[in-house]
């Protein structure tokens, strides 16, 4: 019984520690990585394993220690998994846009080590740069 408890404790603590650590690493990456596109990779950790770990820890905790089901915490992850990519995508678009409209913000070079994005194909460009073609699957809600 106690063994099981301590086992539960270990599991819960582990999840919490992992989660917190990854959240910190994500944010740290956002501080130290060179330019916006690299920094953008930070949050995904905080979102996924960071918060994920925390939530699993929480679910385990409420189930094993408090004896209550707390599966609803999963919904938090569900929503974050839907929304986080959107944020990242939009921020990336902003970056692409700024690469074009103001190539250098006050002298520092935003292009970054990855260089400029490649042209997808001779007959089309990236949606951020040119209007979506009506026939393209990306042309949702264009009317």
């Amino acid at each position, binding site marked *: 019984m106690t063994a099981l408890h301590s086992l539960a404790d270990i599991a819960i603590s582990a999840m919490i520690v992992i989660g917190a650590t990854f959240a910190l690493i994500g944010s740290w990456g956002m501080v130290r990585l060179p330019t916006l596109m690299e920094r953008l990779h930070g949050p995904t950790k905080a979102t996924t394993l960071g918060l994920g770990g925390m939530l699993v820890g929480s679910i385990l905790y409420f189930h094993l220690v408090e004896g209550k089901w707390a599966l609803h915490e999963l919904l938090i992850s569900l929503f974050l998994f839907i929304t986080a990519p959107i944020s990242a995508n939009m921020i990336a678009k902003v970056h692409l846009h700024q690469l074009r409209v103001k190539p250098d913000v006050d002298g520092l070079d935003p292009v970054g080590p990855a260089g400029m994005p490649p042209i997808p194909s001779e007959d089309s460009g990236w949606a951020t740069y040119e209007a979506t073609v009506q026939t393209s699957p*990306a042309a949702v809600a264009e009317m």
Partner: protein
Amino acid sequence: MALELTLYTLVFLPFLAALLITTVSARSMAWHSGLAASGSALGLAIVLSLAGRVLDGEVLGISAPWVPALGLDFSLMVDPLGLLFALMILGIGLLVVIFGHFYLAPSEATGRFFASLMLFQGAMLGIAISGNVLLLLVFWELTSLSSFLLIGFWKHKAEARQGARMALAVTGGGGLVLIAGMVLLGSVAGSFDLATILQRADIVQASPLYPVMLILILIGCFTKSAQFPFHFWLPHAMAAPTPVSAYLHSATMVKAGVFLLARFWPVLSGTELYTAIVSSVGLITMLFGAWVALFRHDLKSILAYSTISQLGLLVMLLGFSIKMAAVGAVLHIINHAAFKAALFMSAGIVDHETGTRDIRKLGGLGKVMPVTALVATLAAASMAGLPPLGGFISKEMMLDETLHVGLFGQPWLVPIVATLAAALSVAYSLRFAAHLFFGKPRDAQAHAKAHDPAAGMWGSPAFLVALAVLLGLIPMTLVGPLVTAAASAVLGETAPPLGLALWHGVNPALGMSVVAVAAGTLIVWQHSRVLRAYEGLRHLDAKHLFEQTLSIADKRVRKLIVAIHAPSLQRMLLAAFAVVVLFIAEGAVRGSGSLTGTRAGQPASVMAIVAWGLLIAATVAVVLEHRQRFLVLVYVSVIGLVIALAFVHLSAPDLALTQISVEVVTILLLLLALNLLPKRPPQLSGNGRRLRDAALALLGGFGVGGAAWAMLTRPANNPISGYHVANSYTGGGGTNIVNVTLVDFRGFDTLGEIIVLGIAGLAIYALLDTAARGAAGARLGTWQEDMPHSPERHPMMFVMATRILLPLVLAAGIYIFLRGHNQPGGGFIAALVIAIAFLLQYLASGFDWTDARRKVGEHLLIASGVLVAVATGLGSLVFGANFLTSSFGYFHVPLVGEVELATAMLFDVGVLCVVFGAVMQALAQLSHIAQRAARAHAANLAVRQEDGK
């Protein structure tokens, strides 16, 4: 009863007449003058019918309570003095009406004229017979107002308007001072009942306030009676039609001041102060008026200054505080009324016939208009105080009395000045008569068609002059009893025996008048020389002075007022914040107690401190970078985030939810607006101003923060919320105490709150609905994007994600609503979440796409929401319970189990509808405007590209 009826009729008759005249103002002059005449005549008849009883010593008084709280009764009192004035007001009023009928052209606004005249008559009559001081004040101010109308009758003339305004300003202003004096008098005497006050001389004169009230009351009298230095309005009042002048100068208006002096003689007179002020003011005025009158050329102006002088005489007499002098005053009041009215009317006739009032153009009129000449000359003689006219008798009395007063301890001062004044009045009277009617014509065309007017026109003056003559010949039989009685009324005791006669034997007074007549004749003989001397001196034109002071005052004050009320929001807020800071400081300094209380604090966790740092940093960043509008919004949302976290930490989950969802909506709103607002960072205000604002801001911060600290470090004082905790479940049927408070304990607040939100929605709609028109529409039409934009309108990933999110978030909203009563949540938060679900669609898929798919209109939502909430509240009335009384029950549904149903949740549905409607209203409308702007921009772009090609 009969008496009351009579007196009420008497006092209301003129007003009634005025009313009737205005109702028939469309009809001919005959109607107007007729009504006025019959009004005056009837009034006169009533007064005469009362005369007998009054002269027998009976004081006819009636009283009806009006404003007991104030001591203002509608009480009328007809004693001999009142009777005397009533007779003059109505009698001369009647004559003036008759004269006016012939004087005015039927084409003029005679309706307005006679109506105002009757209004004025009523006011004067009211003064004469009111038995309550406050009531007297009412009528007093009414005379100022109605005389304003009369003097300004010929409104197309600038001098009429100015004269009227000046008269109103001076007499009205004096009236206000009088109010102060009278209220003091009443409070000191302990009553506003006239009769009572007249009994309380000892109390009044013993009061420390006596000097104050005396001066205040005297200012009232002097302004009305045109005493120096308040005389200047009277000469300009002659801009009024002559009948009006005749009335104002003889029996009314200016006499009101004298009346008041006489009325309060028993209470006020007899003191050093009184005698000194009143008699010296009267003396100066008498002399000054006579002196100026001598050099006027306009007939009416001469008469105006003569009035000033004659009133000075009356005031002086009443100021002597000598019984016999008062008697003389009463007699002279009658004389003056008679000859002055006659003189003005004659002047009017001359003006009417010759078309000029300039004495320098006139002369020798005696030949062409003998009747007028006779009338005017006799009247002038009475004014000059020549025997055998009434004026002589009263002047003799006056001169005689001057010998009994040693003003400022100088026994000779008053007699000499008085004699001098008498001489001057002889002079101006002589000049008036002689220059006008004797000698040879000075201006041919003025005499061209000059002749005596119809009897109707000279009838009135003739009657008055006859009176003046008889007042000299048979004074005792004519007015003896009246004067005695009136005098007694003035004195408040039986007047000394009075022997009015032309011949009193040889006495100093006779000598003085002989000197006066001789000197007067001499002056007239040498007039041109004296005139040159007079014109050598410089004179200040009172009217000009008055108008100038007024316009300067106007400019200065205007400047000040405009400066103070500049349309600067900054100044308004500055004032508000300054007051707050001062008050907080005041409370902190003057109030007792230390800043820090006794309650122990709770240690802050690392997380708390870091969150605090976040908030502080973000706030400082907002302030420092407030000119970068977009950036600060990012900081603001960080602040909001931290506050939400704080609410979580401080056990306020509902607040956290609200904060989070409101934050999102607010940010969307601000972004939508920001897109259309000018984005050029505003120029920095001057260092001085920024420093000032910063200082004020810091003080305010310290103040409010300090207050918060003081509050937080003090123990709670057994708050009523204990009851809410105890009754939330048992009485409110919910475990979420906050929500139960919102929808039940304090549902009334929430009702008001959702209405606020609903109104905000409506107002925003009303504002933006019209934005496409007018200047705003034009500006929207020329709106330009201020930065290069990406061509992509609806990013695919975003759109797809929001479509899956819509049902999920809606589900969450419903869930939050349903359990709000027991767990964090509730109608308001649910509404915001649902609104956000839809706003997401706007954001991702655009306005048109989403708007085309929306079902219910916001107006319907808001209206029905409010109705649902109110109806829920009213529902409880059906069960005899008060508004908003909730009820709930637990029902067992098979399979499902316990289900709670609470009316509070129905109420919460109303909340949900209104909040959802209002939020959608605001953002949808705003984005609609943005749409317009964007389209306009696209159009412009297209045009420009066309031009490019």
